[in-house]
């Protein structure tokens, strides 16, 4: 079993896990003869440019175009590997491998159904009548889809203001926060500053203090300046930067050669110019990956919003749907609750489906590097 895994790992290094690649079994379900020189172990990171990521990038550099792998700062680009395929095959092994592949597929597919079934059920419930919800045996496809529920939801709830508030918080945090984080990462990775490492380590100690420990004093602070029931306590602290994001951007910048910065300095560029014209374009792939992950995190946040936001019109989407859940469960209006929850999922789901490859790759990177 793992034998094939090893072989197919070679295949995925060469081709990347491009979406929509199906049916590659013939190439990979076979053991390739050992070829020391061509074994793409240690993944396809260009040697020398990315010591930090070598061996941990899933298929990062192979997908250099996707641009989330810090392994390949431009203009190096990722190496384009043309997969060498084994010349000789024995049909028996191949057939065996295929059967095993289909078995694995069957198991994974059953698991996959378990993954999406609750979400499909959520959507299906949102289209049911109140009586269909309690039908036994359950109805999966409502007889007449009650699209009207979605109209009711927009009219009778704070979903719309919830969307607006969540968007205001997530967008301002990520846009402004990304700028502060990029600047700090630039300074911490590439500029001369006495005590630079001490500053960085000091910032990192902040990561070790969990939010629940800080939430009470922070709440007291913000209530004293009258920020309770506004979005400010959710925005302002994050705008000062997120140490985890700084960490990853700094890592990425470490791979950028100093010489290009020195060259820009000789040309008389100011540090501000160097940052905007040189550094920011270079780290843009890493920034956009962190931006998306951060946006999703802020969008889905729940604990801080319920501490601060009391007035329904000022609540973020997650708090709005949680309150609807309490309010409408007593009326047994599950279609409405499910409609609201489903709608709350959609924006992030859409972002994920559009950028899935970049998101999954950057997640894999953040995990394997941490």
């Amino acid at each position, binding site marked *: 079993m793992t034998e094939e895994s090893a072989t197919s790992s070679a295949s995925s290094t060469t081709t990347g896990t491009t*979406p929509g690649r199906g049916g590659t079994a013939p190439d990979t379900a076979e053991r390739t003869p050992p070829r020391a020189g061509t074994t793409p172990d240690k993944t396809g990171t260009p040697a020398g440019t990315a010591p930090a990521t070598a061996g941990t990038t899933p298929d990062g550099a192979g997908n250099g175009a996707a641009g989330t792998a810090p392994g390949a700062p431009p203009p190096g680009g990722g190496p384009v590997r043309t997969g060498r395929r084994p010349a000789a095959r024995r049909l028996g092994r191949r057939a065996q491998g295929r059967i095993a592949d289909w078995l694995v597929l069957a198991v*994974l597919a059953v698991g996959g159904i378990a*993954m999406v079934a609750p979400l499909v059920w959520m959507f299906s419930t949102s289209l049911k009548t109140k009586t269909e919800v309690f039908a036994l045996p359950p109805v999966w496809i409502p007889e007449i889809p009650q699209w009207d529920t979605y109209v009711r939801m927009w009219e009778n709830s704070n979903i719309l203001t919830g969307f607006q508030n969540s968007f205001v918080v997530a967008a301002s945090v990520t846009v402004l926060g990304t700028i502060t984080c990029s600047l*700090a990462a630039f300074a911490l990775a590439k500029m001369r500053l006495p005590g630079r490492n001490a500053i960085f380590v000091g910032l990192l100690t902040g990561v070790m203090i969990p939010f629940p420990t800080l939430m009470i004093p922070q709440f*007291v602070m913000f209530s004293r300046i009258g920020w309770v029931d506004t979005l400010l306590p959710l925005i302002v602290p994050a705008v000062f930067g997120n140490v985890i994001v700084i960490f990853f951007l700094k890592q990425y910048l470490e791979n950028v050669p100093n010489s290009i910065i020195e060259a820009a300095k000789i040309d008389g560029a100011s540090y501000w110019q160097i940052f905007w014209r040189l550094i920011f374009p270079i780290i843009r792939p890493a920034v956009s990956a962190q931006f998306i992950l951060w946006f999703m995190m802020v969008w889905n946040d729940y604990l801080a919003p319920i501490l601060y936001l009391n007035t329904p019109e000022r609540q973020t989407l997650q708090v709005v749907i949680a309150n609807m859940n309490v309010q409408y469960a007593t009326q047994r209006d599950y279609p409405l609750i499910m409609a609201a929850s489903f709608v709350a999922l959609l924006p992030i789901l859409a972002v994920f489906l559009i950028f899935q490859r970049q998101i999954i790759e950057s997640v894999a990177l953040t995990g394997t590097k941490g």
Partner: protein
Amino acid sequence: MTRSSRLHQAEHRWALAFVAAPVLGYVLFTAYPVGFALYTSMTRWNGLGAMRFIGLDNYVRLFGDQYFWQSMGNTVFYMIGIPIGLALSLALAIGMNRAIPLRSMLRTVYYVPVISSLAAIAILWQWAYNGDFGLVNQFLAWFGIDGPNWLASTLWAKPAIVIMLIWKGLGYSMILYLAAIQSVPRSLYEAAELDGANGWQKFRTITLPMVRPVTFFLVVTQVIAGSQIFTEINIMTPGGGPEYSTASSVFHIWRQAFRYQDMGYGTAMAIMLGVLILIITLVQFRLNQRNSFVLD
């Protein structure tokens, strides 16, 4: 003063300006609150009136507070989902590493719960766990099993939340394991095959040690995140569950501080939680260091 040192000074000033925001943020929103928390934890305070200094009384009270320990116990209980989830996701990753059809679609499918809003997911699962009409019991009924009223049962409420947590987190661990497996040098497997190793031996002696850093990362981060579990509990069991059987530490802290306005005591518990998380994390790093030494 030489020209170069003046240039350096300019660079120092710019660098300082660039790191000023996070440093200031650290002072304002981490360092100061920690100091403030340490003091608050030694007072009796409702958040509005005057603080009354009572020394370590809150910490003494905490040791005798059965609800605090119950919520701690519940929090630890939820963590049994971590090893189960890791084992499942490693198995999934090994399967996913094969060149099977629909591979990237499956990868996406497993990842959808990860990116989904926790609040929405908690609402969905609360409904799915409904004793009479929930998805879970209807599924069990196919097999002739009469499922419990999950979230209303002291016995089943915690396992129900664990199942949901595993479901939600599976895709994330799977992606990290998949990345790790794909970076294992193939030559290792080839050498093992020459030595006549079977699939299980290769898994135990190559795959498992090679993905160890990822396992470590996942255990550490999931224990830290698991210690702070709140949203699911607050939404699925608003009162802390039957006989407080689902209340987590953070839920208990939140309730004491923001429902009962017992800020001093809430802060003391929050500090206790922070210290415990820190100790557990350090112990994990220690153990990891020692074990990797043995491996080498």
